[in-house]
């Protein structure tokens, strides 16, 4: 529940309107109430995205509290160049990515699905950022667009295999699993070539 306040807003009031009130002049209580309503609208979205990313409710709760704290720090100076929801998505996503040790593009389904903070596979441990840049370039050059998207959705955005299957419109019993396996095989082969060359 939001703080008790004489100011509450209908759910049809757009985010941008609330943001204008929060950042406008006048009654601080009213502005605070508008900001509260705005943040509260996305409470579940932030938590659920963190949960989807970590697959761990305790970690998701910690991360989403971090996100909310960051939002309160920045909401007054948010310039509104993008949608509030888009900005909040970016804060949430960045917090989750920062909190995990690294984006592991080669983690297999067991690791992504079962381990809250998957360690990279040995052959995906890179010395520095240049290696990651190389891997990102390799993804673009070695993988088909559908394989690239499957890897992005599953390993960076951490969507479930079912969601990736649905988004990609993949037919077949294994859904996006087959696409992901194929993509990882190609990436591992590229890594092997690089290491042996």
């Amino acid at each position, binding site marked *: 529940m939001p703080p008790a306040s004489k100011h509450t807003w209908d759910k049809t009031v757009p985010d941008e309107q609330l943001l204008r009130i929060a950042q406008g002049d006048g009654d601080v209580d009213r502005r*605070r109430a508008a900001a*509260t309503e705005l943040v*509260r609208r996305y409470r579940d979205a932030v938590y659920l995205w963190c949960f989807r990313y970590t697959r761990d409710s305790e970690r*998701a*709760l910690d991360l989403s509290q971090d996100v909310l704290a960051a939002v*309160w720090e920045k909401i*007054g100076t948010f310039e509104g160049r993008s949608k509030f929801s888009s900005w909040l*998505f970016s804060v949430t996503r*960045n917090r989750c990515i920062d909190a995990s040790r690294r984006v592991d593009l080669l983690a297999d389904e067991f690791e992504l699905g079962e381990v809250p903070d998957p360690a990279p596979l040995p052959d995906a441990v890179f010395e520095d950022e240049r290696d990651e840049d190389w891997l990102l370039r390799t993804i673009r050059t070695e993988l088909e667009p559908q394989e*690239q998207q499957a890897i992005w959705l599953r390993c960076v955005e951490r969507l479930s295999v079912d969601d990736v299957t649905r988004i990609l419109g993949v037919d077949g019993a294994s859904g996006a699993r087959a696409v992901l396996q194929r993509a990882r095989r190609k990436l591992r082969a590229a890594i092997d070539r690089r290491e042996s060359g």
Partner: protein
Amino acid sequence: MEAHCIDVERIGDITDLPANHPDRRHAETCPRCRSLVESYLEFMKSDAAAGSGVEKARPVLDARIREGAQRWIPADARASRLSSRAPWWRGFLKPAPMLAGAAAVVVAAVVLWNARGPEEAVLRDDAPVSSPAFSLAPARVEDGSIRLSWTAMPGADAYEVRIYGPDLSEIYRHPATPETSAEVTRSALPADLPSTLDLTWRVYALSGGDVIEASAPGSIRTP
């Protein structure tokens, strides 16, 4: 990431762009940007996954939101607070100026309280959730007046129409009426409202003077 990939902060704006916009076209063909759009859409859907524990998390997050709100001081208010630390007003802390100041504050508070009008209210949802059966008909503008009508709400003995300005502050309240229509003349609205300004209106169903239902907000335009 390619040089022209979409910044994550802007990803929510992409789907609103026209189909032929270069950024939209890029987002539809670039696997990284397409994935970001999909991920953003999942964020917005916020479907509770099994075992997510979102019900347990809500009270904790609400407490954190309350805490953040209590601490949050808008930047300009903070600035004015800081500037008020200047020593010039310390003289007012002496007993006589303090008493005079307190009296002035009381007088000003009484004057403000008596002068408060309906324009201080804002569009709020402290009324019961609107029922789909209680709906607004499209507003009609005729001869410089706005004709408003709505469906009857079972159990209601009167209706109150409220009109809100662009900042959603209440600018007009029509006296409670047992009818399911009302006419608002242009002259009843604030004189400084420009023509063809989009306003919001809402009807509150009353029973014995208590609000029992509120309609969903509707849109009208000043004549």
